[in-house]
């Protein structure tokens, strides 16, 4: 049945190049490799359409014929074919396409290796969308083998954890006959080569449109097979392979204009010929060069200059360029690639087992494998609402206050407490939750309780699951407490019969009674009814300032004689350990967006209490003194009625820059460069977290004199540029001080921060909250 003497491998690829490189190499290594035919009706210019009937095989003829007659690409594998795969193959190597991977993983029980070569989209996101997660993270004997770290650096962390090895891939053997061919020629045509195949395909159509916008010049020749030829004389279309390589060698140079996570092979083939290659900023090719930038196109002026040098045969420039290419060329050199490929694939295909499942998912519980049946006491945290934690640039981030506070709490419990945490999440959010709590999950201190809720959290199936959750928590003998982190998102918490802690950082409708905070005043009333009922049920209510504690009784959340159940724990700096340095692409994105302008910064959602109408008026006024000033916001103008109209009235729209879903590192980057944090809010439930960030990252602060600030700072408040609420002249004058005298402003802030820092540490926070969950505070633990 399966390969008796040597493993029998099924290679799901059919790629023109790979068939002659990697597939052939596996056979050289002694594996029997089955190469299925590409008989799909879906056109793919890279696919080898020749049927490989003469391939070496020990499969019984009848089974071989059945496999050769089946279309394995973009299809579901039927039961009878699945039986053949499981009976006759030791392993399957799936290349490139996530849909192909799904079709195999759905039916094949043996070893699967997913071999990838770079893609222009997030492969991990695609895997989530097609429903392969969480089964893929629980799969044993499975590995992903990318060709370069740079090609997957924006993939999700769970994806990277499945990457066993990185194995480069080689350019085709026929190119090596042309090694140095460009350099050996004395004359080159007045032509720059580039490649855009199949421009009927939407991806390549976009690449073609992008190219035409950047480079209307007639000196280009656009290579690659086409299904149709538009009226562009620069499009050459498919050529015989030798003709193509010769024309490449005869051209003045090559331009690579793709700016995504793919690196196609023609520029590397040009490098093998010792020909000069220019490349777009932001391309994967550019990432391979690191700091070396001689061939990088910075902008259109730079492009004109460097293209002219190529066309004129500028020896100095071309010499530098080709010399800088050498490390990149070597990545694809068969002399370098083949030993690595042989070592890794011999090991992956030859060993008993290549991986254990890293996670176990026994619905609804997802935990690190082997640690799912934790007998320790559990804190359940209700987080089953989408959007609390999301992936951004491949990393998982929390943008709202609630998950960031939960993050600090989970960290503190893991560090100092003896309580484990069960995070309740939705299936859609679970990849991000998995990555967000990765370290704690790996340590077995956190597990995920996954609810497969619909888009509408109140449809019948979703509600059944939400009620089942309550039953499970009530029945779990290890349940120590339940943290309800939002006052109305989880009304089912009212059915809990365990200790409940409600996190209630603020209740603004009480302080701004004339404003609707939800879709209507009726909805506000219903929300409040839920919050009041949960607060009444809760054993403790957690908040972050005496100011908030002071009005919760008046607002009806606690009775006047039970305010002691409200615990005040000042927040530490949230997300600090997640503020990693930005990668080059993100830095470029932010720099390009700012275009060198000075800017004010206020990262917050647009809510009535944030007073954006006033902020925009202040900004318009400040621009009179600082005409280059921009304002960077992270919310939306339309969230609160009247704000968009204010932007139009003061004609500041074109000077507003909206950066949504910023990762922690990006937020830090912006603080470090902003002219000032401009905090116009008139109501905050706690010491504004933006001020903690500005203190830490060195941004001048201009803020409303809020009770939650003066409560924490006392006399030190006079060191800061605090303004009376909504007082334009006060804000304008202090903004001028922050901008014109940045150094002394920051020096005064540093004195305040030195005094404040100890109050707002994670340890101090945990010391206050630990007793609420029945765990010992750090000092006692020590």
């Amino acid at each position: 049945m399966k390969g008796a003497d040597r493993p029998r491998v099924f290679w799901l690829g059919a790629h023109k190049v790979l068939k002659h490189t990697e597939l052939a190499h596996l056979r050289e290594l002694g594996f029997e490799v089955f190469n299925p035919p590409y008989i799909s009706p879906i056109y793919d210019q890279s696919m080898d359409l020749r049927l490989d009937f003469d391939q070496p095989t020990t499969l019984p003829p009848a089974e071989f014929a059945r496999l050769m007659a089946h279309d394995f690409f973009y299809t579901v594998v039927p039961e009878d074919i699945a039986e053949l795969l499981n009976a006759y193959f030791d392993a399957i190597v799936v290349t490139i396409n996530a849909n192909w991977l799904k079709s195999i993983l759905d039916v094949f029980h043996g070893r699967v290796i997913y071999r990838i070569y770079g893609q222009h989209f997030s492969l991990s996101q695609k895997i989530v969308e097609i429903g392969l997660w969480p089964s893929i993270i629980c799969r044993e004997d499975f590995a992903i083998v990318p060709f370069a770290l740079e090609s997957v650096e924006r993939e999700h962390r769970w994806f990277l954890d499945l990457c066993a090895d990185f194995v480069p891939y080689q350019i085709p053997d026929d190119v090596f006959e042309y090694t140095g061919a460009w350099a050996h020629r004395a004359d080159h045509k007045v032509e720059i080569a580039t490649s855009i195949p199949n421009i009927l395909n939407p991806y390549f159509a976009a690449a073609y449109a992008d190219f035409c916008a950047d480079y209307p010049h007639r000196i280009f020749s656009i290579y690659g097979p086409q299904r149709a030829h538009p009226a562009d004389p620069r499009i050459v279309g498919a050529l015989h392979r030798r003709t193509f390589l010769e024309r490449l060698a005869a051209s003045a140079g090559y331009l690579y204009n793709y700016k995504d996570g793919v690196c196609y092979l023609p520029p590397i083939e040009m490098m093998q010929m010792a020909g000069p290659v220019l490349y777009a900023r932001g391309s994967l090719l550019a990432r391979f060069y690191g700091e070396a930038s001689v061939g990088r196109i910075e902008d259109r002026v730079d492009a004109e200059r460097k293209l002219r040098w190529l066309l004129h045969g500028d020896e100095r420039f071309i010499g530098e360029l080709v010399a800088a290419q050498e490390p990149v060329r070597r990545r694809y050199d068969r002399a370098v690639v083949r030993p690595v490929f042989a070592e890794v694939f011999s090991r992956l295909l030859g060993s008993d087992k290549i991986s254990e499942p890293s996670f176990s998912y026994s619905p609804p519980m997802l935990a690190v494998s082997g640690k799912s049946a934790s007998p320790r006491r559990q804190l359940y945290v209700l987080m089953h609402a989408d959007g609390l934690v999301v992936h951004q640039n491949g990393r998982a981030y929390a943008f709202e206050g609630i998950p960031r506070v939960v993050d600090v709490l989970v960290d503190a419990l893991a560090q100092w407490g003896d309580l484990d945490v069960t995070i309740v999440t939705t299936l859609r959010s679970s990849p991000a939750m998995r990555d967000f709590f990765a370290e704690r999950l790996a340590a077995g201190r956190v597990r995920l309780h996954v609810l497969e809720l619909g888009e509408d959290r109140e449809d019948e199936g979703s509600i059944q699951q939400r009620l089942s959750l309550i039953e499970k928590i009530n029945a779990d003998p290890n349940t120590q407490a339940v943290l309800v982190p939002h006052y109305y998102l989880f009304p089912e918490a009212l059915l809990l019969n365990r200790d409940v802690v409600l996190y209630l950082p603020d209740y603004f409708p009480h302080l701004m009674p004339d404003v609707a905070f939800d879709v209507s005043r009726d909805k506000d009333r219903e929300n409040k009814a839920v919050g009041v009922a949960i607060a009444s049920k809760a054993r403790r209510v957690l908040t972050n300032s005496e100011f908030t504690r002071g009005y919760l009784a008046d607002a009806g959340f606690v009775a006047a004689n039970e305010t002691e159940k409200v615990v005040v724990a000042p927040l530490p700096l949230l997300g600090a350990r997640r503020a990693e340095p930005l990668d080059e692409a993100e830095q470029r994105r932010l720099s390009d967006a700012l275009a060198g302008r000075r800017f004010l910064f206020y990262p917050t959602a647009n809510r009535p209490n944030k007073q954006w109408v006033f902020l925009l008026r202040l900004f318009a006024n400040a621009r009179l003194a600082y005409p280059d000033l921009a304002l960077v916001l992270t919310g939306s103008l339309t969230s609160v009625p009247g704000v968009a109209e204010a932007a139009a009235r003061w004609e500041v729209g074109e000077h507003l820059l909206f950066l949504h879903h910023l990762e922690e590192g990006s937020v830090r980057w912006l603080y470090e460069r902003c002219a000032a944090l401009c905090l116009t809010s008139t109501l905050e439930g706690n010491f504004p977290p933006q001020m903690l960030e500005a203190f830490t990252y060195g941004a001048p602060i201009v803020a409303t004199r809020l009770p939650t600030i003066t409560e924490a700072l006392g006399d030190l408040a006079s060191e800061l540029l605090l303004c009376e609420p909504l007082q334009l002249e006060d804000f304008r004058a202090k903004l001028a001080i922050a901008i014109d005298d940045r150094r002394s402003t920051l020096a005064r802030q540093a004195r305040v921060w030195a005094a404040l820092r100890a109050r707002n540490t994670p340890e101090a926070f945990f010391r206050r909250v630990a007793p609420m969950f029945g765990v010992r505070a750090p000092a006692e633990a020590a």
Partner: protein
Amino acid sequence: MDGDRHRNEGRWDEAAAAYAAGLKAKPNAFPYWVQYGHALKESGRFEAAEAAYLRAIALRGDEPDVRLQLGHLYKSTGRGDRALLCYAEAVEAGSTDRFALEEVRNARVRVSEPTPLRAFDAATLAILRRLVAASGKAKAGVHSSRAPSFARLILDSVGPATTEPRP
């Protein structure tokens, strides 16, 4: 058969006896159990009627009408929460009975004393589940007024929420 004739003439004791005789011959005859339940109910033997209906439900769980009848039985004997559960199950099984739909849609379950500190048991959760399911059907059914939100259903099931400061 005799049972139907006695039933049509309003002679419920005789009808019950005739259906009981029929069930001896055909113990799994679903229509007999339903009619037997009706006859017992009309003759005032409520516990026996409940047992007959439950036997019928055990034979044909997908039949909404018998659940509806059991709901009426509970309703008329003062067991409102069980009635509501049956109405909800009837709607869930496809009943379009206006009375049942109305009962479900307007359901304000008072399953126990209205204190938010009460521990909820599995039966309460089961009732809530069926209410939610039925409320979805009612929303899409003949009644045009808006079904209560999940939050409202829970608030109602735990008692009135206090929005005023407590003394």
